[in-house]
């Protein structure tokens, strides 16, 4: 188990270095630089040069790249070009919004996905099963921002029971919940659909298994059959659920745009536009860390739920 974890950590570290380098190179390759965007459209060449010096962009690429890693090792993500504040401060400010949104969307998609998938799998061919199939097809086929706009049209404009956009300025947990309801549902629709499909397929597979057939042949109650299937199907779902959680961060980028939420995604979009390299790198570090954490969690959960995995 320890060797296995060490191996996966090492490969994740290599991935991390590659991702960070790729993002750095990509930001460097994009035309238009932060100094120019900072000094404004009317600025003279001298003013742009002054901005470039101030942002430390006059140093060669390789020096800046090395510096970035040096700072990262000391836990310093650098200062934002645009906001003139430490990137860590900005991330800490943004995380509650994205974290709350991701958590709400995650819970919703797990409950919905597992619930619908399980029931559909236990009743193949039924009207309920066909309904779930219909939902998962639509949920996966259409882009999530489309659901966002439709939800806004229905619940914020035609029948205004929920707020249109943004975050409440004050108002406590209740106000937050109201503002996060539509974005969380938007994020959960395709993810729950994905999970429901997977759960349904896994349940169907396990229902064909010998031990379930035996239960059924012995005339065991439906609840016993249910328990057998659930216990055997669950471990196989841990990994996809954890991966789903890791990928939620990218989903929030689009949804935060649609709903005007000041989270990490909105920050990232703004930072790319302003060529704010330290912020883009910082957001990437965060995304990679979440992804790595979720991967490890999946491994551990799998090991806990399935005795066979512990042997490996």
């Amino acid at each position, binding site marked *: 188990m320890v060797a296995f974890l060490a191996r996966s950590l090492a490969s994740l570290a290599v991935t991390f270095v590659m991702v960070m380098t790729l993002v750095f190179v990509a930001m460097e390759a*994009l035309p*238009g630089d932060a100094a120019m965007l900072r000094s404004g459209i009317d600025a003279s060449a001298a*003013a742009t040069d002054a901005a470039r010096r101030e942002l430390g962009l006059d140093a060669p690429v390789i020096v800046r790249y090395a510096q970035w890693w040096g700072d990262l090792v000391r836990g310093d993500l650098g200062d934002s070009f645009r*906001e003139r504040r430490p990137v860590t401060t900005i991330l800490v*400010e943004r995380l509650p919004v994205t974290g709350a949104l991701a958590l709400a969307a995650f819970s919703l998609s797990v409950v919905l996905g597992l619930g619908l998938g399980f029931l559909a799998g236990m009743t193949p061919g039924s009207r309920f099963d066909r309904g779930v199939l219909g939902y998962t097809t639509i949920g996966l086929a259409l882009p999530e921002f489309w659901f966002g706009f439709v939800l806004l049209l229905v619940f914020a404009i035609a029948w205004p029971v929920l707020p*249109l956009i943004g975050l409440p*300025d004050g108002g406590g947990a209740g106000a937050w919940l109201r503002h996060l309801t539509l974005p969380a549902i938007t994020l959960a629709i395709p993810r729950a659909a994905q999970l429901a499909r997977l759960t349904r397929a896994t349940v169907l597979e396990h229902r064909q298994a010998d031990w379930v057939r035996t239960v059924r042949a012995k005339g065991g109650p439906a609840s016993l059959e249910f328990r057998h299937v659930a216990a055997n199907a669950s471990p196989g779902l841990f990994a996809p659920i954890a991966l789903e959680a890791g990928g939620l961060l990218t989903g929030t980028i689009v949804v935060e745009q649609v709903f005007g*939420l000041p989270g990490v995604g909105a920050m990232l979009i703004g930072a790319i536009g302003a060529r704010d390299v330290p912020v883009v790198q910082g957001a990437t570090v965060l995304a990679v860390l979440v992804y790595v954490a979720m991967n490890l969690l999946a491994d551990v959960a799998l090991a806990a739920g399935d005795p066979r995995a512990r042997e490996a």
Partner: protein
Amino acid sequence: MNHVVRSALAALLATSLSIGVAQDLVMATSAQPDMLDPHGTSATSAFQSTKSIYDTLVEVGRDGTIQPLLATSWSISDDGTVWTFDLAEATFHDGTPFDADDAIASLNRLRDADVSPKAEEFTAIREIEAVDARTLRVMLDQPTPALLASLASGWGAMLPSEKIAANHDFANEPIGTGAFMFDEWVRDGYLRLTANPDYFKGAPSIDSVTLRFVTDSAVQVQGLLSGDFHVIGGVATADLATIANRDDVTLVQEPSGTVLVTSINNRRPYLDDARVRQALNLAVDAQTVLDVAYGGGTMTGSFMEPGNPWLPSDVEPYGYDPERARALLDEAGVPDDWTLDMALPQPYEVHVQAGQIVQDMLADVGVNVEIRVVEWGVWLGEVYRGDRDFDLTVIGHTGKLDPTGRLGGYGDPDATYVGWDDPTSVSLLSEAAAEPDQTARAALYGEVLHRLHDTTPFIYFGASNRSHAHRANVEGFWMTPLLDSYDFRSVTVQ
């Protein structure tokens, strides 16, 4: 009797309501500040907010003229090089009084190129001194009439000298003398300001202002109609009719200082021929472009918005004449399969749409246009600056308080993105910049504007309308002419 009682009750209710409820004005706007340090930024979106937090020595009035603010009066010596300002009694949000030392520290900070992207506007300043606590004297190397406009612009803000010396983080914790004090800023969310009860020109009547950053204009309009927003900063062309037809909201459309153009790269083959550039102007129906892409506007024939006092009245728009355009193109020997590369700035939907209309109109006179939509960073780095890789592009040049800001560099083929080559204009402009007599200055700029019409580096559309909208119960909100800053000082909500 019954009637009297009822109106008395209603009056009582009304007063108790107006006393009991804190009046917060919510405005939705698409662009947020990059920082709240007025000396460090160059973004219009920043100055729109900092206008409420900081005051400048002088400011732009509703009629576009320069008015006293922190300087109650000023005088300029006959040779134009010694400027004396009398300062108002005002207090910074941190409680320290405003005096000449604060003005000196602020101007010195502005002149520091490592702090301010606008430092070059202040290079003529030789020395600044405090005659006494309430009198400021600025000595210049040469007459610089445009300096007054710089002092009236958002970046001319006055900051407390003690905090400047202590290297205070104005970008995130702004402190000024303005009518509103900084409260909270959630980036991509909102900026909240609270009324300054000690504002030297009288406390505002509303208690606070919340600027909400909403990029989608359709969402802004929905929020206005539902009453979530009191004011919205921009109305998309498609929504103008919706808003104009409602009783509970008011649409305000006023001429803006933004000159909309198709910019021509004068360095490129055939485009270096003035006849071709004139032909392109004649081939474009500018009023249609303004109406369809920009929701209306007024045509212009030179690089200045119509109605601007610096624009000579005899400069007329080109007019739409495709026949003559074709004749001029033939005369210039333009080949049949001539194809131009048009780079359009992706974040500005209106310019992209205008570009598509121009593409259609030019096709009518036999000029092919291939459109390339580019991201803003690319537009700035490769079209406006850098390699200047474009034949045509569509953009708006925002209003400037002084013609130096608008015309600076034109005529010098390397100084501007269009590469317009006119040495006469270069010398006229340098003469005008140091001319203290306003009538003589106007004549010089008028001459340049004539030249910018005749051998034009642009296809001129005209000036767009600036539109904002507010709930019918909101009064007193206005936007500064040319600078487009928000002024909430006299806003009331019924």
